[in-house]
């Protein structure tokens, strides 16, 4: 097990910067999830850790040792590829045992070890099949098994569970979680599934357009998103963002937007700085912090109902403030609402997030 560090890493493909000036360090035994929209540079970052791609500039360290130009075979890492990359001419046993073959383990021992891992991932009965003879989810588990079959310094996972059904995914997730606690594996894990990231990660790195926007613990990312991008990306459904105009009055902050009534907020220096730059701010409220307003509520948003989706225990109530500026609430009552009804949603001041006109979080709110 080892730490991983990026120092000002840039990777360009021609004129296009897939990863631009990324620096971070991952401690020994940490499980870091990379979260971000498609094409933001997650796979490229993993490939640079693996040595399959050389950074255009910057340095990469594994276990404190510089590996920027080291060949992949000399890094002692394990990787699950986004496209599995199973060897089509080898059966599952040989596929999974291949890293052990390279390490000159005797045949019987490596097959026994491969079977052990395969059994845990419930593909032990398929060891004689070729990759083309098993399902997509089974292929994915084979690829996962091949990465876990040998002890590596760092494990890199590129969406390793994306093709599994909900139950298998939960099981595999539990298995990875157990492995991480058990052997203290250092892992970098790319996923599109926030629940997975929240469940597995000790820290989450949210990426956007080749940059790391926020690198923090799951709870921190949920509670204090650094930018509107993170706020809008994390959460299911994501945070509601309402553009507002802020003014200072009576030493307090007044916010204005169509259909919004909100009690004046306490002024802070940070808010003052943001206001001095621009009066257009963004107000954020998570759907789970919105409810149907009771009469006399202080903080409300009112607009016609756009959709009411019943999800079982809860409903997603969406109102449309015009120009597709929609606000969604997760509510746990089953009030009857009709399309076109005007609905008023309420929230409490302690759940308010504020962002300046660049979309950066204004510190001090909701901390």
């Amino acid at each position, binding site marked *: 097990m080892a730490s991983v560090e990026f120092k000002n890493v840039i990777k360009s493909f021609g004129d296009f910067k897939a990863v631009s000036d990324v620096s971070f360090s991952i401690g020994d035994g940490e499980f870091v999830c990379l979260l971000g929209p498609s094409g933001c540079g997650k796979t490229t970052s993993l490939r640079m850790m693996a*040595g399959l791609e050389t950074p255009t500039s910057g340095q990469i360290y594994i276990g404190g040792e510089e590996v920027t130009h080291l060949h992949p075979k000399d890094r002692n890492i394990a990787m699950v590829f986004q496209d599995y990359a199973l060897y089509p001419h080898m059966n599952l046993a040989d596929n999974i045992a291949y890293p052990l073959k*390279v390490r000159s383990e005797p045949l019987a021992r490596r097959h026994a070890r491969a079977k052990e891992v395969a059994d845990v991932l419930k593909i032990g009965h398929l060891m004689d099949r070729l990759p083309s003879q098993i399902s997509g989810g089974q292929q994915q588990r084979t690829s996962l098994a091949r990465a876990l079959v040998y002890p590596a310094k760092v494990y890199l996972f590129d969406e390793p569970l994306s093709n599994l059904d909900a139950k298998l995914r939960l099981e595999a997730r539990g298995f990875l979680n157990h492995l991480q606690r058990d052997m203290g594996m250092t892992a970098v894990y790319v996923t599109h599934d926030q629940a997975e990231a929240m469940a597995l990660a000790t820290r989450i790195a949210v990426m956007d357009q080749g940059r790391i926007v926020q690198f923090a613990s799951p709870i921190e990312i949920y509670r204090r998103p650094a930018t509107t991008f993170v706020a809008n990306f994390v959460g299911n459904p994501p945070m509601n963002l309402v553009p507002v105009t802020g003014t200072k009055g009576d030493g307090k902050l007044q916010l204005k937007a169509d259909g919004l009534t909100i009690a004046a907020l306490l002024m802070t220096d940070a808010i003052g700085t943001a206001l001095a730059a621009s009066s257009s701010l963004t107000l954020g409220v998570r759907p789970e912090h919105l409810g149907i307003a009771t009469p006399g509520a202080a903080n409300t948003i009112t607009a016609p109902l756009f959709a009411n989706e019943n999800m079982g225990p809860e409903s997603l109530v969406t109102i449309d403030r015009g120009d597709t500026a929609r606000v969604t609430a997760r509510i746990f009552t089953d009030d009857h609402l009709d399309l076109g009804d005007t609905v008023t949603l309420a929230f409490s001041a302690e759940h308010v997030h504020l962002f300046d006109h660049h979309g950066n979080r204004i510190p001090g709110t909701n901390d």
Partner: protein
Amino acid sequence: MKFTLPAFFGRMAFSALAALIGAAFALPLLWFLFAPFNGRAELGLTIPDPFTLNNFVTVFGNSFAVQALWNSLIQAVGGVILVGSAATLAAYALSRSSIPGKGAVTYILLLFSSVVSGSAAMVPIFLIISAAGLMDTHLAVILTFAGGLLPTAMFILRDFIDSIPKSYEESAMVAGASPVQAFFDVALPVIRPGIVVIVVWSFVNIWGSFLIPFILLRSDSNMPAAVAIYSFYSEAGTPVVTLLAAYSLIYSLPVIALYLFVSWKFGFRFFGGIKA
């Protein structure tokens, strides 16, 4: 389905035409199968009468003709090994490395390859081979064919390898394999169908060619079968049809055998345009 009358006659006419064309192609093949067993074979197609294997006995009694088959085999196998291995390594490098201008290299080679094995280059090839002191050797034939066939072989194989995801070798290298190990363990088995195509193609090319060995070889003991067929012409230049037919049949057997072997062992996968 119901045919209207004109459509029905249209189908009839089409089928008759197709049958006629088919027969035109089948007749020479039938002759090719019957004549070797016919004691009095002529250029016309007849049922073997008397049916005999004497033609084959005479052919196998002709040591020059037998030696020629052996020579053909040496030259074809030698050429195939050279073309197959060189094309595989070159195509792999061209596909996987990031050498600038590698596309241009292949296209230029491809352009010149048609010159090398074509008759236009016969004089320079003759001069080069004789300057290299390789005149009248198997090696001369093998090298000339390799020069002519390699670019096309490389081109086909590179296209084939390009269509195979890099991540096979990448995952092998991440797992700890050296590039050479990754090539032999992972890449080579995956590329094999493409190599098989190249092997068959170059074998057929060398086996069937006449001009290059005819020019580069002198002694009877080195001549391949394509040239030796001429020994079954009488002094006056008329073919001895019986022997010629028998020899031709023997001559075509290795090619047929190779096709059968390959399709049995690997299954022919030309992948429509050589893509997986």
